[in-house]
C-alpha cells in the first residue's frame, strides 16, 4: 500500500509581475519523506516551499497539503499552517520575547494550550535541541546556531506534520552549522515530513530520501541522493554540483 501524499503540487505556475518563477511544477512528497531541494540562487526554491504554507499564493494549478487544498480563502490556510512548521534562513525569532515565550506563543494563542502545559512541552523541546539552560534568554543573547535551534523548537511546538527549512544553515558561521544539522538529522529519523532547501550535500546524502534540482523555475532533475550525486542526469545539475562540491 503506497503511503498517502503529504504534499502534492499539480500544474503549478507562479509569476512575480511578469517574472515566471514557478513553471509547470508537478511534485508529490510522501508522508515521512525527507526531500532536499537544491539549485542556483533565484531558481525558485524559496518560492516553491513558501507555496506549501501559503506565504506565497500560486496563480495556476493546485497545492494540496495533508488532503487540504490551499486557496486564497483563509479557512483551509489556517488549518494547513497549524500543521506545517517553517524554519527560515534568518531565524526570525521574536526579539521582544524570551526563548520560552518564542516557543509557547503559537501553542497558547493558536491552539489554546494551557500555559503550564505549553511551557512544559517547550522545555522538553529545548532539551531536544540541547539548549535547556536558555529558556529565559532573549534571542539577541544567543549565537546564530543557538537561535536557529530555538527556531526549530518553535516550529516543533505546534506538533507539525510537515517541516519546511529554507537554507537553515546559510546564515551561520561554519562552526555552528553542524549543531543545527545534527538537530535536523535527528528529526529526519522521527517520521516527520521534511522539505529542506539546502546546499549541505552531506545532510542530503545522510538523511535525504530524494533530491530535487531546480533551475529557472522548473524542476529539471530528481533522484535519490546516491544516484543524483553520481549521475544527476542533467547538464545544469552536473555543472551546479561540480561548483558546490568544489568548495
Amino acid at each position: 500500500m503506497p503511503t498517502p501524499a503529504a504534499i502534492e503540487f499539480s500544474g503549478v505556475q507562479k509569476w512575480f509581475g511578469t517574472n515566471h518563477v514557478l513553471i509547470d511544477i508537478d511534485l508529490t512528497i510522501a508522508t515521512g519523506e525527507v526531500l532536499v531541494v537544491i539549485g542556483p540562487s533565484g531558481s525558485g526554491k524559496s518560492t516553491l516551499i513558501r507555496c506549501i504554507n501559503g506565504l506565497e499564493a500560486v496563480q495556476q494549478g493546485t497545492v494540496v497539503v495533508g488532503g487540504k487544498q490551499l486557496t486564497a480563502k483563509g479557512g483551509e490556510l489556517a488549518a494547513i499552517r497549524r500543521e506545517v512548521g517553517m524554519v527560515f534562513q534568518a531565524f526570525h525569532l521574536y526579539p521582544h520575547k524570551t526563548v520560552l515565550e518564542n516557543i509557547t506563543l503559537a501553542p497558547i494563542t493558536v491552539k489554546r494550550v494551557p500555559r503550564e502545559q505549553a511551557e512544559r512541552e517547550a522545555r522538553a523541546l529545548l532539551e531536544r535541541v540541547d539548549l535547556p539552560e536558555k529558556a529565559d534568554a532573549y534571542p539577541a543573547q544567543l549565537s546564530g546556531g543557538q537561535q536557529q535551534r530555538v527556531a526549530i523548537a518553535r516550529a516543533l511546538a505546534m506538533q507539525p506534520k510537515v517541516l519546511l527549512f529554507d537554507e537553515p544553515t546559510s546564515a551561520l558561521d561554519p562552526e555552528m552549522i553542524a549543531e543545527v544539522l545534527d538537530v535536523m538529522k535527528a528529526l529526519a529519523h522521527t517520521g516527520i515530513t521534511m522539505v529542506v532547501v539546502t546546499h549541505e550535500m552531506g545532510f542530503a546524502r545522510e538523511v535525504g530520501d530524494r533530491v530535487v534540482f531546480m533551475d529557472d523555475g522548473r524542476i529539471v532533475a530528481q533522484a535519490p541522493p546516491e544516484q543524483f550525486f553520481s549521475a544527476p542526469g542533467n547538464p545544469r545539475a552536473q555543472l551546479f554540483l561540480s561548483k558546490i562540491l568544489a568548495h
Partner: protein
Amino acid sequence: MTDLGWLFNRGTLTFLAGGLGVTLELAAIAIAVSFVAGIVLALGRLSRFRPLSVAATIYIEGMRALPVLLVIFFSYFALPRIIGVKLDPFAAGAIAMSAFTAALVAEIVRAGILAVPKGLVEAAQSQGLSAAQILRIVTLPIAVRQMMPALVAQFVTLLKDTSLTAVIGILELTRRGQIVFAQPPFQPIPVFALIALVYFTANFGLAQIGRRLEARTL
C-alpha cells in the same frame, strides 16, 4: 529685585503648582488619546482598503500642515458651532492637543510598523497566528520599541505646546504666570524665570523617562 516674598509664598506657589498640575493633566490626556488614536490612524493609512487609507492620509497630512495654535482656536471657537455643543476651555484644549498630536504620532507609528522585519510577520503567519494576533503580539510591540525616541521627542513637543492653551483661557502654568505678574509688584522677570525652570525640568524629566524606556528595550 531684593525681596521675592511676593512670589515665593505659599499662596502664589500653590497657585502656580496648580497650573503645573493642569499642564501635566492636559499633556497626560493628550498623550494617552493621541497614542491610541495615532495607532488607529497609522493602521488606517496602511490599510489596503482605499477609502480608509485615503481618509487617514488626508487627516494626517492636513493636521501636520497646520499650526497647532490654529487647531486650538478652531477647537474652542469653531468646533462648538459645528457640533452644537459648547465646550469649556479645558475640553477644547484637550481635544485640540489630542487631535493634533495623533497625526504626528500616526506617522511615527507608521514608520515603526514599516521597519518591522517582514520575516518576523512571516514567522508568525507560518505558525497560524491570525492577522489581528500578529499585529497585537508581534508587529506593534516591536514597532513601539523602535519608535520610543521619536515618541518621547513628540511628547516633549506636546508638553511645550500645552502652553498655547493659555490663549483660550485654560489656567495652566503659563496662564497662571501671566496672572501672577499682572499683579503688584508687577515684576514679570522672576515669574518667567520660575516657570521656564519648571518647564525645563518637566521636559528634561520626560526625556529621562524616555531614555530609561529605551534602555529597557534592549
